[in-house]
């Protein structure tokens, strides 16, 4: 089992969710995150006043899938979240030792 973490632009969340839905992935954890990267925070001056945004708002998705599904999921996320511009985000794949459903105690693929 793998955990896929994807950091994407906020407005792409619906597209990505839909794309994942299409391949049967319905459950995920979504959080509002802040980041820096190549697309840096910025300072704007508008009418004499300075506006500093020192982080970039992003959305983080966390999805647990079976190892065999990883490539497909990554492909779907990439396609849906890609705008071709800096700041489209990143995808991380991490190994997962075990998954347990709290209610039933089911483990492994049953619990995904």
């Amino acid at each position: 089992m793998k955990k896929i973490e994807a950091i994407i632009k906020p407005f792409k969340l619906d597209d990505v969710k839909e794309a994942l839905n299409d391949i049967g992935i319905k459950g995920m954890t979504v959080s509002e995150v802040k980041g820096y990267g190549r697309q840096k925070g910025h300072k704007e001056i508008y009418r004499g006043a300075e506006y500093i945004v020192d982080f970039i708002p992003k959305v983080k998705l966390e999805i647990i899938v079976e190892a065999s599904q990883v490539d497909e999921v990554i492909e779907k996320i990439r396609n849906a979240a890609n705008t071709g511009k800096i700041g489209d985000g990143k995808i991380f794949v991490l190994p997962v030792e075990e998954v347990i459903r709290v209610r039933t105690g089911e483990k492994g693929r049953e619990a995904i």
Partner: protein
Amino acid sequence: MVQTVIDSQDFTGLRARRQALDAYWQQGISGYTLLHKHSDFIDHHLACSFEKSVPAGDGFALVAIGGYGRQELYPFSDIDLLLLYDPAQKDELDSLAEAILYPLWDTGLEVGHAVRTVDECIVDADEDFFFRVAMLDARLIAGSSSLFGKLTEMYKTAYIEGKRRGFLDDMLAQRTNRKTQYARHTYLLEPQIKESGGGFRDIQSMVWTAQVVFGLKDLVSLQKAGLLSQEELNRFEQAQDYLIRIRNRLHYVSGRKNDQLFFDHQEEMAEAFGFINEKEMLAVEHFMREVYTHMQTVSVTTDLFFEHVEEVLGSDETPKAVKVLEPGIEVRYGKIRLANTELIKSEPKLFMRLFYQSATTGNPLHFRTRKAITANLHLVDDKLRHSRRSSKLFLAILVTPHPFRVLEEMLDTGFLTSYIPEFAEVESLAQHDVYHIFTVDRHLVQTINELEKLREEESNIYAAVSVPHILFLAGLLHDVGKGLGHGHAERGADLVRRIAERMGFEKKDIGILEFLVGNHLFLSDTALRRDLEDEEFLMRCATKIHSPEWLALLYLLTIADARATGPTVWNDWKGALLLELYLKIALLLDSKDLSGHEQARSAELGAQWIREKVAGLLPAVNKINFDLFSDDYLLSFPPEVIVQHITHAKNLGKQDVLFLHEQSRESWSILVMSKDRPGLLTRIFGILALHNLNVLAAKIFTWADGTAVDAIEVSSAISETYDGQDWAVMENELHLAIKQRLGLEHRLSRKLAPLRSNPQGAQKRLAARATIDNQASEHYSVIEVFSEDRIGVLYDITKALSDFGINIYRAWIGSKADQVVDVFYVLDYDGKKIEDPVFKNELQQGLLYAVSNAKRKMEGNRNKN
């Protein structure tokens, strides 16, 4: 009514008792009756076991205190008992306590017990506020009435007679505590029926205080004594009964002593109360609306009551003089009041005048005046609602420094809904989700509170607002279309148009109001769901929003709305997205002439604001001639930076060149100041290129006295560090170049070739373009050059301009993706715009040649290498 006979034994068994209570509920026995029945059962049970185990005589008394004393026993309430004993009988105490209490514990009831002598009670009551209050409701269940009589007498002497002020102070302190503790967000969404504002504690503290202070034992006596009107009493009793029924059922539904209407229980409760889901509103929303309405009634009534008591027991300072504010309205002890409460009946215009005086003086309304307003709301008629005079006052209230407090009073007295009947639809309206923590009416008033704060916090943006009354009115009414299903924004826009027409607004103002209400979700939806780099989409936003002022209004409304909704809706994450959207649209609105007039106006306001700031930051002795600075210069830098420019300029001699550099977050900032001279910019850009610096952005200005201020953002093209950059050599060469003692041209051609080694260059190159526009600016020709972003390109462009004898007065340099868009505000050699079509064409060709010729030169060089 059909009575089910339930064995009292069943009633004490936990499971059986639950069934019994439910059976009563199903029969419609749900309010006070159920409490009393429950209390009677327990009484009966206790009296039996008391008689079985206690010898007759005056040695013992079993006393119910607290809620049980009042015979208000909810399904899972604690049963608070006091076993009173004569010290002479101490020996028998243990066996007696066992006989009475053990069976109770065995049934699983929550028993709170105290075993005390009369004297001990009096001492304990002194130390324990809650015990002292619980004693107020003491009731004899079984045993010696003379012992009980002794207790009540001593209690009265010790804690009631002559202690009225102290009692009130304790009550008020508890009330304040509760208000702070239970005002938190969770308690708004999931009200605590007992402790929240408008809950049972409020009711009880009113009844207790009435008892101690006035010797009035119940609500009816309060009405008879004139502390409540008949109307108030009726509403209050209804509210109380409703809350009792809720608490009864809530204990049953939760299966334990739980007084908080948790989210999970709300739906089941709604069903138990017979509400059904409808298309526009869920059953649970209907139900919660009832809950909030009744709690509001309790809250308002008890507020008024306590103000009354405070006044009765008020400190005996010498009466302050009454100050008459206007005929019929006066202020006394810091409260606005009607000179005579009957006045309002003949002078309905006094309604709005009262609130107006309250808003302008900052004094709240006296409770009697508030009561008079509520009692006479039927006099708020169409005539008043159409009155220009009233609507002017209403708008004036909205733009006072603190309209929030006044609007709260308007809402609490019911005046707001009478004056704007459209408000009735959203009164106490609950939304069954975790985001909206306030009922809609409270949320709307809360929005005013947030706007009040934003006026200070976002003063820059607020400076662009010329119609604050429209902004605040939009805040107050933006959700007025709620409660009728989807599309509340559009419906709201429709409603506010009607409201504004009734109030006699000007057409222009109605337009803004309608726009704001109809689009109050637009920015927050867009910021989350759209690509903020999609220029075309942003352009459509700009076109829709129409003017910088409208954008500022909508932005402020959006933030206020989000903040007034709840803590999960607003955070700095969302704030950052919204700010980005705001700035992007704002810059578009500024650059494109979408609405020349309003744009100029709000820029003017902004510049004025900067002038004041700058003047404030400089020592008073420094006289500044603001005529030196154009508005767009002022609007391009923060006030502190302008002050620095002014200070530098003072030290700048005729021949001097000031060269400053610093490291900022992502780039290096260079400031060059000097007397303007032909070719200055060319030389600066030449030197930058010579030292491997890429120009990321530049702001080029010339003051009216000929001082050039060039602020340039650069980065190293060869990844040099800031400290590794040889700034001293660069400064020296800049001086030489400006004095025309440095051969920039030959140095550059040698220098640039190896830098342009980007193999993709040829494919990625975009066609260069140069335009000359005489419409965009009143005084200058505006030249835009689009070219490939490469080092030295600005040198080539400005050199070409300089060769044509063209003076650059200001410039915007910006990179967009791989392309540079440079904008120059220029005049020709004679100080005129470039109008001659032949010269225009020549200049265009010259610029294009400069951009591409340099390229060829370099490619030539590369081939040679």
